[in-house]
């Protein structure tokens, strides 16, 4: 599976706005490039990213071929309760990678 890096603050105060940062390795091949043999290189991209916070969706993005390789996505959410943030990236073939991070909210 692709390698991903996630940054979620380990702890936060209830009501705090927290920054979440994610990075995943992926070629994000646009489908518009020509390979050394003269054949087009087939499109191969991650096209969907979702973050859920204790099961509730807090961020959702659609990705398109103009996104650079190794997509970096950062966003903000409000720390409401202790629990788990789950991140899932789905590629155009339907393969999904899920990674989680825990947060403690006081």
């Amino acid at each position, binding site marked *: 599976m692709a390698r991903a*890096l996630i940054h979620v603050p380990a702890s936060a105060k209830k009501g705090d706005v927290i920054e979440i940062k994610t*990075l995943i390795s992926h*070629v994000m091949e646009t489908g518009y490039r020509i390979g050394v043999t003269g054949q087009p290189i087939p499109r191969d991209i991650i096209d969907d990213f979702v973050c859920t916070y204790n099961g509730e969706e807090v961020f959702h993005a659609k990705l398109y071929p103009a996104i650079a*390789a190794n997509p970096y996505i950062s966003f903000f959410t409000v720390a409401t309760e202790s629990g788990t943030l789950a991140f899932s990236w789905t590629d155009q073939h339907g393969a999904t990678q899920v990674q989680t991070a825990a947060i403690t909210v006081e």
Partner: protein
Amino acid sequence: MSRASFVISLVIAVATTARAADIPLDQRRSDSDFVSADTLAMQNDDIANPAMLVVLDGETLWNTKAGATNKSCADCHGDAAKSMKGIAAHYPAFAPELGRPIDLQQQINLSRVTDQKAEPLPFESKELLALTAYIARQSRGMPVAVKDDAQAKPFIDAGRVIFEKRQGQLDLSCAQCHDDNWGKKLAGNLVPQAMATGYPIYRLEWQEVGSLQRRLRNCMSGMRAEPYDFGSPELVDLEYFLMWRARGLAMESPAVRP
């Protein structure tokens, strides 16, 4: 020496050194000073720097057994955070078994072949770049300190000759841009001093991590010159000269460049 021959030799000396001198030591600046604030922020944030994904791959490889001896890098070298600290800042370095200097990638392959009894990894392969990036990461912030003793001197000098030699259809030398015209613009970009302190780099143009040799070959294509082959003595000499030229500057691997 007669007066006439003195004048002639003076004219020849001026003609052959008709370029600015080396950048004074205290005016040298990291190539990071020549990139945009956004690119620099990406480099300095381990979550945003895409090369960190490759560094993590390198950590996995460091602990993976390989070759006929079925040993990993870690089996001999232990924790890279300790054993590899500062190592990349000392490469290229003289390899007695080969009688000439080798760069960090070649050192990794030398160790694979002689110690692990494994196949060498191809230049620019994901695995070799990952191991190189992982090892280089352990030297971040440490000063470049390649050896410049009598044994190394001829190779550094050979690198300097390549650096200062005009080549290619554009008839340019590395020095014309990076010694004489750094800080000015080439197309839309600032010309950096070519202080090779951040390799392997994540280059935005490549959308991936690449070695200093790949970058040098890029520049040569840009000069419409025939690039030296990966692993060729000329490229290693040039790498050696560049690292000697950057002596004392802080390592930044893995850097992000436009």
